[in-house]
């Protein structure tokens, strides 16, 4: 198992690349979904359908 995390001694490059990509995409998805929900709620408060 430790060999998997070591990534042939390249773990210090492989894991940050995956971590930063996952974090970036996840944060983007959360922000986009949050803004969408907020805009939908704002329209609903005004009595209009999305």
């Amino acid at each position, binding site marked *: 198992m430790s060999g*998997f995390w070591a*990534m*042939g*001694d*390249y*773990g210090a*490059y*492989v894991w*940050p*690349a*995956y971590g*930063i*990509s996952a974090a*970036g*995409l996840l944060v*983007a*998805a959360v922000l*986009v*979904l949050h*803004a*969408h929900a907020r*805009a*939908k709620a*704002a*329209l609903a408060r*005004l009595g*209009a359908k*999305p």
Partner: protein
Amino acid sequence: MLRYANPARFMTLSGTLVPWLGGFALVALAAGVYLGFAAPPDYQQGDTVRVMFIHVPAAWTAMMAYGLMALASLIGLVQRHPLADVAAKSAAPLGALFTALGLITGSLWGRPMWGTWWVWDGRLTSFLLLLFLYLGYIALWNAIEDETRAARAAAILALVGAVNLPIIEFSVDWWTTLHQGESILRKGGPLIAAVYLWPLGLMALGYSLLFFTLWLLRIRTEIMTRRARSLMLAGEA
């Protein structure tokens, strides 16, 4: 195509498409990550080859997003259709994100393979320019208060910046570079083994579908925000 450029039709169609696109994106990404880590280390690059499965899709998606933004900008300029302006505006932050991810993952791949985080060669510099074009486009939209004028100015920047796309693509052929030449989308077929092509293809599909999911959601958000603003202004009048 322009039949769906009616905001009401777009909202109905995108409302149906988004869950499917998002679901397929997650499945493709999960399968791509699994196959990517199940693939054997490359005989030359060792385990760093796994960075390719996230670096290349990020770079492709960043360029595709710019192409779509430029196309929407052109339609916005020619047809004067507000939905095209909204589509272009909504693509920019996502394109900037994928460009940044391409640069960061490329740097993390380049350090162990080339012995350096960065070189000012044609491919890397033109790709960095892509990030600046995205940031400039976003800044231009935010700097001009009148939305119609902002859309026109930003569309012109997007179209001028589109010249950078073929420069990125062919930079590895035109100039000496540390970056590897075209090895996937080339005449005569890909140069890499099938065991790496499958995870790469799935990740590229996943990144593209994720982009389209988030892009549609951002367009929907912008349409709803503009509608809410109009309703509020009408209420105040």
